[in-house]
């Protein structure tokens, strides 16, 4: 009964339990939490369209558009948890650069782009 096979069987069980536990834990850790991202939809062209990607609680994101440091537009949109929203903006004529500032709760993020 007490031979080396029982040691190997025990070892196999320990390994399976440990590895399964660690794998499940790593999968759980692979989820982005309490974070949101702001980026341009297309980084190469002159389009000012942007995306808000939300991994925090569902909430209202307020965005402002600045041209030459002057605010030209302000609006808000609700983005659900684990979702993203594309915001399309018609490219203003004769503008060299554009800045987009998005606020959510107390957090603020900004992106800006040369439109030439």
């Amino acid at each position, binding site marked *: 009964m007490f031979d*080396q096979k029982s040691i190997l069987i025990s070892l196999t069980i320990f390994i399976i339990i440990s590895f399964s536990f660690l794998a499940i*834990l790593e999968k759980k850790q692979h989820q982005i939490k*309490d*974070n949101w*991202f702001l980026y*341009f939809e297309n980084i*190469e062209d002159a389009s000012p369209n942007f995306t808000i990607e939300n991994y925090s609680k569902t909430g209202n994101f307020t965005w402002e558009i600045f041209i030459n440091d002057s605010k030209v537009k302000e609006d808000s949109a609700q983005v659900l948890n684990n979702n993203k929203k594309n915001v399309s903006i018609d490219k203003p004529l004769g503008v060299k650069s554009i800045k987009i500032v998005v606020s959510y709760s107390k957090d603020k993020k900004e992106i800006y782009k040369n439109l*030439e």
Partner: protein
Amino acid sequence: MVRIYEIKGGVSYDRRTKECLISYLSRSGIIFFKIISPILFLNSQIASLYNSILCYYINSFNITVCLHFMSIFNELLLFFSSIIFLLFLPGYFLLLAIFRKKINQKFSPIEIAVIAFATSLITFDFLFIIFGKIGFNINRNSILAIISFFILACYGIYKLKAKKETASDTVPKKNNSKLEFNKIQTILIILILFLTIFLKTSYLANSIFPTSTDLGHHMYWSKLVAETGQLPHYQKNEIIQTADIYQLKTNPIADFIIGEHLIFSGINLLSKISFISYFPALTLFLINIFGILAMFILSLRIFDLNFRDNTLNKKIFNPANLAILTLFLIGPFYAITSPQAKFISGGVIGNLIGNLLIPLCLYFYFRAIKEKDSWMLFLAIFLSAGLFYTHHLSGFIFIFILIFIILIFNFLFILKNIQTNTSSKIRNILSNYKNLAKDFFHLFFSPPIITLLIFALLFLFFVYTPSYIVTDAKTTVVGAPSKSTRAGLTLEQFKYAVGEMRLAFGIVGFFIISGLIFIKKKLSIEKNIIYTRLLMPSLLFGWALALFMMTTKPQWMRINIPSDRVANYANFPFIILAATGILYLLFILKELKNNFIISKKIQYFLFLLFFSTIIFMGYYDNSSSLSQGQKNQKALQTFHASEFLANQIKSHENLYSANIIKDHNYISADSWMKLFFMTDYNYPLSRGYFKRYEDITKPREMCTLWMISEPSSQRAQNCFSSTNTKYIIVDTSVDGPQFKASSNFSKIYEGNSLSIFSKNNR
């Protein structure tokens, strides 16, 4: 002016999701049965049966509940079956083909498991290299075919040879009784293994998420192999400065060796589990566990010869107890510190494989000489060759270990001959050397060894030469130490590297083994007994002395490698020596009580004091090594930014030649970024640790520093244009301000801590 689009609705598992789930599970299930079919010799009917059962059950249960667990369950099933298929079966069938019916006589079940694991690893590497060189596209099907063919070939040899063996050659299945354990010993081993795995799992729970720099670097090469199906060319783009001009040039890399990467490619190809997941760390964990067991079987065998029939109390001082104590000292003690669990989460692949192969190589060399078995020597050379195709530092250290073992053996051999009562001592020495040479000649010049050596040489020169030989890296590790970190550790530093308690008892063990060799008066002058009994002390003393000298006095050995890296290897011989020391002190304690010098109560008290000191010292180190907090959220931001940029570059053909630079100082898991782009090992370019730019012993390019630290400067602008660097990934709060202040850059992405800037075209 503004339109808003909802890209993704709320999460609801509708019919489409259900169909997707069935499709996903079906695919992974079929892959699983494709892997397992060659093992079970079953056909694809099982796969369709699995599919039907799966659809039935998925339609019956709540889909939202089972989705998560089913996907993990499937992944784990694929992972475990890949491990069995790649890391157990080839080695087991190779052993079966070599030893046939004698396998149970030669090895105990634990030995078979450990040896099968290590030989599978090396066999897989060599098969992969051969077929890769022939021009086979390495993918799931070719791996399944190659490994299945190898297993069947080995099984065929086993059957063919087993039939030819006469009845007199056959041996009873269980005659390895010498290595059996009693009930208490078995329970002790199981408890030690449980404690070892439990402690390491506790540590890894906080560090299983893939963030470590080294592992990221290694996984790039593994992913490259899996994606291209070809063997990798170890090279990278480097910024080269000529006068004031900077340019990117492709240079070979000596630091990476193919054996470190292929097994991860194999597991990924079979299981389809992402490289950025738990599987690389779990594979390393498995290698670490088998490395510990390799030390266990080595100590069991080397002590078996000298302490089986010795004069000491057999109840205490026997090979099984010594091996259990070795397992205790290498398993739960110092379970977290380097080179244990910290090496697993840190992705120190080469060292971990080296720590598995070095004890096993010594195990086979020991048994080959002791038993005069050329097939044992065959496996020793096979695993040694595997070591040199896996990790050059381990291989280099192994050469020194062998040299020291040979020197110590000769020293002890001469000393023992002088001790004999013969009149002409020189003649006696020469005569014994002559007999020794005869034995070694028969062992080394046997058909399996000559065949293996010819194959090894052909393989080295015509099939695959390790990158460190091609790039002549040996010149950088041989010579006087070039830095203070290579000039050797002090004795104080060495003590902490090995572990105070292990070093202290190791020294005790050294004196006890020395005493047992020289104090024993009744010496047999029969040649075999003399030299085989010298194998254990030569192996332990040579192993320990080689690493002690390489760590503390590298200038004497003319080696130029970081001393703390060598020190990681030093604890292994001291663990076995410490096991001897501790057991001897327990033996003394028992003898004192038996001779009525101390009472039973005092004996128990001393025993408890003794063991609590050992346990305190071992576990104090574990508790101080536990990691603080998790880095996964920061790493996930890095992955998100990388994925965003990689997708953008892939969708714009004109960006293919654009370069990226990122910062290594403040970005978590930045070495994993390259896995999203798969363009070059050095893509994105990296601003390294600041101290490296100030290292006068190794001047390096400054472009990567300037492009992030002072992006508006003229020299940085020159670097941007000469390297075609267009995108910069930095920590927003630390390095964002200098980009924000410049009109040359746009900010195209922002997360909680990371930003991506792009260089404007004008």
